[in-house]
């Protein structure tokens, strides 16, 4: 699964730390999602969608091998 989290964050001029605080997670979690090392839960994906004001599909998308 790939994501546009880094782009979405940059568009809103948010640091990983700031986004982590909004979501109530650690900076490491945001970093791991951005680097595709961790796939977030539905709840966290929906929180991200709410923070960025875009659909979950615009942040996360499936890859051929998913």
């Amino acid at each position, binding site marked *: 699964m790939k994501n546009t989290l880094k782009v979405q964050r940059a568009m809103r001029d948010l640091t990983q730390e700031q986004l982590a605080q909004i979501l*109530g*997670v*650690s900076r*490491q*979690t945001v*970093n*791991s999602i951005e680097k595709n*090392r*961790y796939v*977030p*839960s539905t*709840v*966290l994906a929906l929180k991200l969608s709410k923070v960025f004001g875009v659909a979950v599909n615009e942040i996360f998308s499936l890859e051929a091998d998913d």
Partner: protein
Amino acid sequence: MATNSIQNSDPKKIARWTKFQLPNRFKRIGLIICILAFLLMLGRKFAEGPLWIKPLLSNIFIIGLLMVSLAKEKIEDELIVNLRSQSYRLGFTFGVLYAILVIPLINYVVDMLVSGAEEATFEANVFEVLITMLAIQLLFFHKFKKAHS
């Protein structure tokens, strides 16, 4: 009764048990308990004392390790929960394998060298097994956290 709710498979009540954790400060408290128990165990080697002291200190050491294992991180988010779960799985698996393969072999070799082949046994005691499981879980958890930092 709590055990009844587990038997009746009520997910919400089961979660209350499976999600049980200690506050973050117990990580430090557990570590201090482990160090003190370890130092007392070392001290006991050089001084005479009643027989019940060794198992008591081993129990205290294990309780300290368990406290560290159950203590929450400063931010206990879903990634940490996931890493914790993976570390428990590995800790359990390696602990069992270590208990049935490695510890008995070490004990056998040590017994053979110290007491001779006739008195050598493949026994592993409960403290060795529990300490191994908890130590492996904590090591893997630490390693996983570092990999995500």
